């Protein structure tokens, strides 16, 4: 890895603008966790198999371990740390109310993946939408229930 092979990346994370210089092969996951100190996004496998690093990139749910930091130059990223995002707040409350978390390691990725699901989604749609996010604790039952509950609170679909 040549030391010269670095890129300047300007990215808005949770509403805050950051500019960092990172090696070109740095993943968005490493950018968030190591460079910006946002460790709420989890590193469960590094190869796109578990979904624990799901974040929103310009509003789309993506796996931060499969995206390179230079690719998000000029983009907006939302992570679990975003305190004022209303969708995330509804999901947080619903996950707590339904006990839809246990060890909690998949929870940030689940919440971010769920944030992109349409309000009023059926259980089958929710399950399909979360199929890329593994959970070993909950059997998914209460997660599906929490996502439905948060969807109901949201009111009509946007």
């Amino acid at each position, binding site marked *: *890895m040549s030391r010269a092979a670095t890129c300047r990346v300007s990215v808005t994370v949770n509403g805050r603008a950051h500019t960092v210089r990172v090696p070109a092969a740095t993943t968005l996951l490493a950018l968030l*966790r190591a460079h910006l*100190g*946002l*460790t*709420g*996004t*989890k*590193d*469960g*496998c*590094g*190869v796109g*198999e*578990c979904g*624990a690093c799901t974040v929103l990139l310009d509003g789309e749910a993506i796996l931060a371990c499969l995206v390179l930091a230079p690719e998000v130059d000029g983009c907006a990223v939302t*992570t*679990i*740390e975003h*305190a004022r995002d209303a969708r995330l707040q509804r*999901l*947080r409350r619903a*996950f*707590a*109310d*339904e*006990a839809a*978390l*246990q*060890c*909690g*390691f*998949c*929870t*940030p990725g689940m*919440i971010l993946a769920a944030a992109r699901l349409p309000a009023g989604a059926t*259980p*089958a749609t*929710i*399950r*399909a939408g*979360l*199929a*890329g*996010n*593994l*959970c*070993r*604790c*909950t*059997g*998914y*039952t*209460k*997660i*599906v229930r929490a996502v439905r509950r948060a969807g109901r609170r949201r009111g009509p679909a946007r």
Partner: protein
Amino acid sequence: MIGRSLTRTDAAAKTTGAAIYPQDLPAPPGCLHIAAVRAPVARARLRSLDATPALAVPGVVRVLTAQDVRGTNRFGLADDDQPVLVTDRVRGASDVLALVVARTEPAAREGARRVGLDLSIEVPLVDPEHACDPDAPVVHPERVASGRHPNIVAEQTIVHGAVDDALGRAATVVEADYRTTFVEHAFLAPEAGVAEPGADGGLTLFVATQWPQEDLRQAARALGEPLEALRLVQQTIGGAFGGREDVSLQLLLLLAARAMNVPVRMVWDRAESIRGHGKRHPFRIRHALGADRHGRLVAARVDLLADAGCYASTSAAVLANAIAQACGPYAVPNVRISGRAVYTNNPYTCAFRGFGVNQVTFAMEQQVNKLARALGIAPEVLRRRNFVHEGGHLATGPRLFDCAGLEATLSAATARARRRPLPRRRGDWRYGRGLASALKNIGCSFGFDDHATARVTVTKDGATVWVGVAEVGQGAETVLVQIAAEALALAPQRVRVEWRDTATAPEAGSASASHQTFVPGNAVRLACEQARRAIALLGGGQRLPREGVSATYTFHAPSTDPLGHAAPTRHSYAYAWSTCVADVGVDTATGQVRILRVVNALDAGRVINPKLLEGQVDGGVVMGQGYALQERFPVRAGLPIAGGLAGCNLPTAVEAAPLIETVAIEGTESAGPYGARGIGEITMIPVVPAITAAIHAATGVWADEIPVLPERLLAALDAARVAGSPLDRRR
């Protein structure tokens, strides 16, 4: 407070990203990074090791080998048979040959790849059936002097009555061989941690584990550290399921922190996590079960073979547990149950939710279901006829108490299941419903002194309870807050449970064996009740001194007898039982099985938190579903092939049972806190045989080997078609 679904105490931290798991720990100033050197084979002699190429990597500062270990260099939960760093012999996937210390994580990893290994590669022992052949390679040659075959980790036989006679006279005998496979725990957070030397010469470890004090005891022996110099601070634990009961990277971190005298950090990626910790024991179970013509069980002859892999870990206890529970919750007057756990060069096997009971319950329940069919008796009737009743004897000798709930689980599960009919056959799809019951011992059995200590301080501001449990996700912290709040008559918001730091939280045992609600729960309750009485003696809460009132209580679970005791009073101090009904659909064209619905009726004793109980059932059912139908862990020449989670084929939200119905029977439990039982494991255990019974009901095929992968089921369906099975005529 008891019986209320209090919101999890960790919900806020875990839904905002604030919870700190070991991988989230920042590298302290001056921190060095370590990476493990592992062998490309499962069995070899290590002739020599060349650190020079690693030291040439920029950033690498040192390579630590076995010569740098000051203690015994051996550790293990039961036998100290595992080296911290290999001295001369590679035995399996989890072995570490050297540690590379570097200024950055990438440099440490690069250095680890470059260490030169001079290995004399040997053919690994991979088949447990041949582990005790006279010419089998010996996994631990230092055990040759022990008198029995050196590859035997544990071996035991329990005999009651005259089995062969009774089987000879039985009206019906069913005989079969059952097979189960390795399973990866696949907790979502891979191992990571930091170790830090203190100014006082001590070492502090920041990791996630199931039994912190035991980690430190093993570290003290293996590394030659005074135990009192070691401290462990638990981080948020990203799942465990038994896979964090054994030491993984704890000793490597402590070794490097001592050698370098600066903080060190280690992070395992998923592939290393899969190599580095144990797996569920594969079992081969040879089973003969006989009944008279009324369907009363008369005899069972069971032979168990468990693959312990390259290190003993808790294999002897898993085997004892499997033997003790081999005949399930049934009275069987004549039994011969023999079992053996053997060393191989496969990944070592260890604790995993159910601890040996899952495998034998799959076999026994399938046998009971086959027997019911052979006798033309309904499965629930046959079970009711043979359940152990209050004060009756389990097949292995001890008497069973507080077990009225057992039959209640059967009635409740079957009644609930009947509320929804199965779909009618359509196209190639056939549908079936299956039933299974199970019992699981709670806590550490067989004479182990299972105990926990809790300390509480009550001030005008509220109460703080120190108790060294592990919140692995099951909700221990929340449940203990509820127990303390109840005992102290305080609002739960005024109670804090401090479990993370061994410097302040007294030992509460291992977070395993469904023991945490039961044993630490009792310690918390009794410490809090003591404090409450002391406060009353002072004249009530208004008269509390500024420093508050403190109390400490050590709860010892009722004593138990070892397996093999001539006249055991009890092998375990408590049990939980459950009955499960599974509805499945089978695509007879492809062999694919879909779970439609699972009803799980369990006797949880008094339920402390209904939502957390449901959460345990949901998770246990889906883990059982994965075990029954899809989870794989292929091993070639002793090394896992699955480098990642995808290879393990865990159930996703799409495959997971879409409907799981929990029915909680609140039967009597005299010894549990407020009458509660531990239920972490029982939730999973009957799921597998209920699913295989449902597959039989749908197709007429008994699957005696799990996982029931589509290709296996399809082959069995094809064979049944050729043999003229009633498949096409059935519903």
